[in-house]
């Protein structure tokens, strides 16, 4: 493999791994805090047990997320030295602020996990809330850095060098707010549905019980609200991409030709050499409507750029379809669940409801990974959009594949172990005495 491909694969692998743990680190603390708050309100031991179970999950996943995040911060220099050399000063601000947010998260997680009988109840609950807030802030800051790579601002480019750098302007680039909101909501969606699905599966296995029912209520409320909000945030992000990265929008929609009143394509397979997207369900004027909220606006196609500068249109388009498809299914499911709940029917007595929940529950994480593929692959061949190519940023160090295989092997073992541990801890049936003791 050449260095560019190896470095991209390695960065992709470590990010794909880290994003799962980071997303859980954002959302599970919120869920455990809500559970503890319900316990303090109702005195129902099922909530306390749930808070403790989810706290254990957070402890395992946060630790792995913390170390895999450290790997990423080093990889920026190890794999992309030219990028860091030029851009480090511009995007250092969100990373530095993220450092402090991460500090806060780690400190209060320590207090939450090991301080049950060392701090007063209200302070314990507050610690959980601080973990949830600082976890979300960490995600926001890191996404700000990624947003800058998509819509670089806050500097002047003079003879290939960044001068007159304005770190705060760079941090708040046009993509910053919509991308960060989309990321945080994606984290809540992914972990909310995954947790609801796990408890749905347990409920089917061991019959109706309070523990799994309250777990589903909390997890599904968080995941459901997030996925419905996601449609609004996705719309804002889509229009931002249309304005600042029209070629990215064209490739994620499979739009090869510049067109007035462009259709929205659902599904389909792009054929870059033939410059067309086949087999798609077309909704007339749909893309123009989405991109600018006008029926007949002009949408730029990939024909505005030489083909050598296109991203992998097929991969980007398919990833985008997967993300939107998963999000739509989860939204429909949420609306049905909300309607059933509004009709005052206990959701969990419906076997079909539970089975559907279990079936759909991994889609949040699938959408998260697919969405991340969309934003990263869709930006190629640029590492800093229209300013620096990924091939210019990569390291020239020899034997990069050694590193690739070493880290891949380690991450593989870690992944398996984490899944095994979680299956032992979170899934385990609550023992009667445990419920009584708590």
């Amino acid at each position, binding site marked *: 493999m050449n260095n560019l491909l190896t470095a991209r694969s390695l960065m992709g692998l470590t990010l794909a791994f880290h994003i799962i743990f980071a997303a859980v680190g954002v959302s599970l603390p919120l869920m455990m805090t809500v559970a503890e708050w319900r316990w303090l309100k109702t005195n129902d031991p099922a909530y306390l047990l749930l808070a403790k179970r989810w706290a*254990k999950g957070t*402890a*395992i996943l946060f*630790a*792995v997320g*913390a*170390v895999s995040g*450290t*790997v990423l*911060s*080093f990889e*920026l*220099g*190890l794999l992309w*030295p*030219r990028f*860091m*050399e*030029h*851009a*480090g*000063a511009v*995007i*250092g*601000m969100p*990373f*530095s*602020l*993220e*450092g*402090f947010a*991460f*500090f*806060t998260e*780690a*400190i*209060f997680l*320590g*207090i939450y*996990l*090991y*301080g049950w009988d*060392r701090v007063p109840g209200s302070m314990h609950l507050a610690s959980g809330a601080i973990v949830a807030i600082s976890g979300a802030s960490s995600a926001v800051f890191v996404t700000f850095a990624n947003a800058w790579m998509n819509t670089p601002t806050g500097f002047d480019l003079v003879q290939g060098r960044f001068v007159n*750098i304005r*770190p*705060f302007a760079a941090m708040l680039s046009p993509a910053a707010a919509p991308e960060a909101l989309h990321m945080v909501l994606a984290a809540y969606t992914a972990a909310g549905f995954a947790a609801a699905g796990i408890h749905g599966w347990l409920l089917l296995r061991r019959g109706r019980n309070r523990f799994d029912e309250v777990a589903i209520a909390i997890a599904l409320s968080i995941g459901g609200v997030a996925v419905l909000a996601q449609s609004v945030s996705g719309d804002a992000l889509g229009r931002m991409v249309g304005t600042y990265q029209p070629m990215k929008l064209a490739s994620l929609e499979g739009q090869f030709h510049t067109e007035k009143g462009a259709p929205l394509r659902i599904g389909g397979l792009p054929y870059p050499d033939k410059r067309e997207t086949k087999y798609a369900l077309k909704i007339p004027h749909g893309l123009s409507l989405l991109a600018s909220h006008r029926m007949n606006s002009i949408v730029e196609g990939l024909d505005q750029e030489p083909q050598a500068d296109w991203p992998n249109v097929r991969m980007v388009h398919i990833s985008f379809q997967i993300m939107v498809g998963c999000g739509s299914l989860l939204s429909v499911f949420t609306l049905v669940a909300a309607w059933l709940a509004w009709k005052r029917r206990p959701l969990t007595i419906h076997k079909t409801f539970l089975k559907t929940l279990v079936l759909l529950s991994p889609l949040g994480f699938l959408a998260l990974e697919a969405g991340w593929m969309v934003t990263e692959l869709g930006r190629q061949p640029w590492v800093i959009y229209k300013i620096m190519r990924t091939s210019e940023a990569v*390291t*020239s*160090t*020899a*034997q990069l594949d050694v*590193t690739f295989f*070493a*880290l891949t092997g*380690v991450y593989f073992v*870690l992944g398996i*172990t984490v899944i095994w*541990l979680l299956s*032992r*801890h979170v899934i385990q049936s609550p023992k009667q005495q445990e419920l009584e003791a708590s």
Partner: protein
Amino acid sequence: MHAEILLSFAMLSALVLYSLLGGADYGAGFLDLTCSGPRKEQQRAVIARAIQPVWETNHVWLILVVVLMFSGFPAAFSAIGARLPGLLLLVLLGIILRGSAFVFRAYFAGDAQTQLYWGRVFSISSSLTPFFLGIVIGAISNGSEAVNASRPASWLRVAWLQFFPLSVGLLSLSLFAYLAATYLAVEASDRELQDDFRWRALISGGVSVLAAILTYLLAGSSAPGIREGLASSTLSGAAELGAVFAAYFAFRNLILRRYRQARVAAAAQVGLIVIGWAGAQFPYLLRPDLTVFNSAAPANVLWDLLMACGAGGLVLFPSLYLLFRVFKGRRETTSGMEST
């Protein structure tokens, strides 16, 4: 005041705190490897209980050093990445394995054999990581061909495998083990356990003194810049002199079983050694060519970063105080004693 100097001072503070806190966590992991005798399980329990609530927080100091470096001194950061890739990979593998193996052991719910195996992974990676981190410090200090920019870099190149960096690695490991053993003597519940850690503190402290002398001697031929800096920089001179006094008090208090005083003195000793090194290394980040001046980001960026550090510190330090008060306060360690 130059922003470059202020920011490098912030990085040095983070590095000192990382050594005193994160370093002690590594040291405790190394001591886990040495647990033996009739109180083996109790020793392990003291170690696990001591680091469990704080190790992730302590680890963030390293992340802070890294992000401040790549934001404030990007040219030096990318040069270190480009010139020492294989070594940094070893550090990273150590960091991944230490952290994950520690939680895997703590939350393990299977057979005892596998749990022991994760414990072994934890303690071995805890020992290797500070050793490699020390080698990084040695390699960026000696300015020899280990970090020569003109040579083509390779992940498999081990030019850092020289006596000077290796002796700095040994120095780091022994200092961290010494710190950890001194801290653990305070946190241990009874006299016998305290003595177990007291012995380990005295032995590792002794090794660290030998490693320090060895490093100083090797610096004469391998790292003349550092040797010269130690002699000429007032800060370095004062810090190293202070470290000698602190070491004397630490040993004296360890022998007299006055563990709280020993803990303060040992921490002062290690902190002063790091400060002494930094004084001798200044203004270099990566010898022989990259300094805090020629690799710095523009001044306005540095000032903004300093402002962010100030604002972050306002949140960070009260939170840290709370964390250590809850888990390491006088009342807590004594009541922990009674309950076990």
